[in-house]
């Protein structure tokens, strides 16, 4: 019996005439859909940003980090700045002697305030060697990277710290003082795609300073938190990483105190973050859908109770149980569909706003944009049919007497 077209129209009428109540129900579905889409898209965005951070150095680069007793909250191997680290310049020399190594540079974070036009008290100052410039993809916006040791008193700035230090947006040739010494600003980087979750390598806020200069200034060797090692073209990277690891372990007298990870692959810390993120997303999705479904069920129960008399009339003039059931399920279906569509629209608006006003860069994940509303509709119909079954089973004469 083909009565679905009429049912849908009646369902739509019914929803239109009880707009307020229907909107409340729809809200459940809308929130569910928005929550799921946003969480997944934000998660994907964060993943992408973390990924970008890792591949920033290129596929043929491995990262050597000291292994520390101290573990981050996520169990990752992030090292607190300034902690006693087993990596030294000697290690870099050792690594450089490997035949497959093209270049190796230390990254070291040093403390001390900086004064340009204005003072910055706790800047991120990274001491490194001139070769660093060959590791990073973003080019310099102005000037150049410090090159050989004769440029001992030069620094290069990240794009964001410029405005903290100087009135001028192009501070090339200006000076800043650090630890009582004058430095010349030799270059400014273009913007790095900075992931919001990574504090350690937010290069946009960093001041790059020659490693040797810092060593001369402080009299000690600044502790190295990361060594970047680039292989010669055509090297097998996993094998390369293993040989770097083995070489360092050997030179440390057998102590397994460094970790070598291929830059093209996410490190274990980020892996765990992503797993948690995926779990969080799934939990949020399930909760959102259950909330939406219960919202629909509630409204359907109210609807059924309010409309017992109507059900009685419909049955008196010949509606079968199945037809009553169809009508109420059609209503749940129409409400869910409208809610799902509004939800998708709202989610897109949310993604746009987040991109505009926050450092999150959500990415539209099309499968979820399609699956989320479908699941929402399914759960809406599922939860909606429970009261619908109740409505359909009503005895006609009792329903008619009900006011």
């Amino acid at each position, binding site marked *: *019996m*083909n*009565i679905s*077209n*009429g049912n849908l129209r*009646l369902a739509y*009428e*019914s929803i239109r*005439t009880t707009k307020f109540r229907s909107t409340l129900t729809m809200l459940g579905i809308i929130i569910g859909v928005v929550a799921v889409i946003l969480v997944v898209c934000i998660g994907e965005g964060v993943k992408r940003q973390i990924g970008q951070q890792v591949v920033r150095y290129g596929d043929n680069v491995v990262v050597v980090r000291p292994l520390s007793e101290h573990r981050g909250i996520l169990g990752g191997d992030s090292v607190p700045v300034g902690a006693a680290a087993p990596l030294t310049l000697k290690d870099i020399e050792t690594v450089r002697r490997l035949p497959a190594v093209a270049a190796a540079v230390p990254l070291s974070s040093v403390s001390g305030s900086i004064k340009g036009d204005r003072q910055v008290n706790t800047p991120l100052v990274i001491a490194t060697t001139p070769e660093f410039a060959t590791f990073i993809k973003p080019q310099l916006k102005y000037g150049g990277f410090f090159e050989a040791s004769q440029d001992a008193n030069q620094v290069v700035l990240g794009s964001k710290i410029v405005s903290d230090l100087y009135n001028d947006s192009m501070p090339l040739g200006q000076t800043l003082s650090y630890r009582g010494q004058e430095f010349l600003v030799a270059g400014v980087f273009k913007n790095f795609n900075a992931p919001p979750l990574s504090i350690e390598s937010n290069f946009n806020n960093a001041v790059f300073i020659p490693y040797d200069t810092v060593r001369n200034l402080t009299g000690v060797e600044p502790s190295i938190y990361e060594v970047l090692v680039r292989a010669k073209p055509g090297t097998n990277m996993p094998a390369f990483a293993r040989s770097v690891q083995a070489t360092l372990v050997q030179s440390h007298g057998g102590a397994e105190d460094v970790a070598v990870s291929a830059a093209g692959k996410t490190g274990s810390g980020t892996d765990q973050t992503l797993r948690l993120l995926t779990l969080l997303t799934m939990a949020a999705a399930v909760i959102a859908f259950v909330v939406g479904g219960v919202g629909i069920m509630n409204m359907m129960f109210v609807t059924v109770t309010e409309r017992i008399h*109507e059900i*009685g*009339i*419909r*049955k*008196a*003039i*010949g*509606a*079968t*149980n*199945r*037809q009553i059931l169809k009508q109420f399920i059609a209503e749940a279906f129409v409400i869910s569909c409208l809610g799902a569509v509004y939800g998708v629209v709202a989610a897109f608006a949310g993604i746009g706003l987040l991109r505009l006003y926050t450092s999150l860069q959500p990415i539209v994940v099309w499968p979820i944009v399609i699956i989320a509303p479908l699941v929402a509709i399914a759960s809406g119909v599922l939860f909606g049919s429970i009261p619908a079954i109740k409505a359909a089973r009503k005895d*006609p*004469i009792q329903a*008619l007497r009900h006011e």
Partner: protein
Amino acid sequence: MALIELKDVSKLYGFGDATNVALDEVTLTIEKGECVAVMGPSGCGKSTLMNVIGLLDHPSHGDYYLNGRRSARLGSSQRAKLRRDKIGFIFQSFNLLGRLTAIDNVALPLLYKGKSPLARHKIARAMLERVGLHDRTYYYPHQLSGGQTQCVAIARALVNDPEIIIADEPTGNLDTESSRLVMELLAEIHKSGNTVLFVTHNPELTRYATRVMYMQDGMIKHDEQKPLGVVGRYAHTVIYGEPESHEDDDIAGVSALMKARERNEPAEKPARKTTKRRKTTKKRGGTK
């Protein structure tokens, strides 16, 4: 084969001492083409009888045969389909769906029958025209007068061309003029060959009937065949009397129910003896 046949049909509500007998072993046959008026004091079981005949309610005991089919054997969806195709119900309180326009209300039984939107529209329009409401097609029930609303309800009852029209106090909420309009419509339906059952408290309206049944305490007290245009013989006097109860009985503790049982056998024929004893106080106005 009679169109409607009830054999010892009872309807009881409640349990034990609180048992309420709405229908008391009613045996009754209605042939095709009759126009039956049902009268009786409030609470005597008229609506219950209509609901049982209209397949809205189940009898507690006894058998009801509609077109020779035993109703107890029908499943709920078969009953629904019979209500849709064979029976048109008209209620005192109209029972239109307030959110639908007049034409959508009329078309509803067609929708449940599975007719196409175009056919629904055409048939429903023709029906509204038949009850004289073609200029109110897209009005909502709250925009119609009581009489017009009942006419829409009649159009809805007629839309599937049912054999039986059951009207439970169709004029109960209407003034004299609208009552006449509604009854004229029912008379017309009767004339075109349908069987009509209607409940009324207005003796004058028995003029439209070929048969008048007088009920009391769940039983049919009088069953009178009569020509059209004449008021039923007992319509003015019988029905609004107080329930029979003699002082002797009260003292003896004989309940009205037991008495009713005693008198059950002669109830088939009009029991004139009992009517003479009855007081004739009118409880509800004849013209309403």
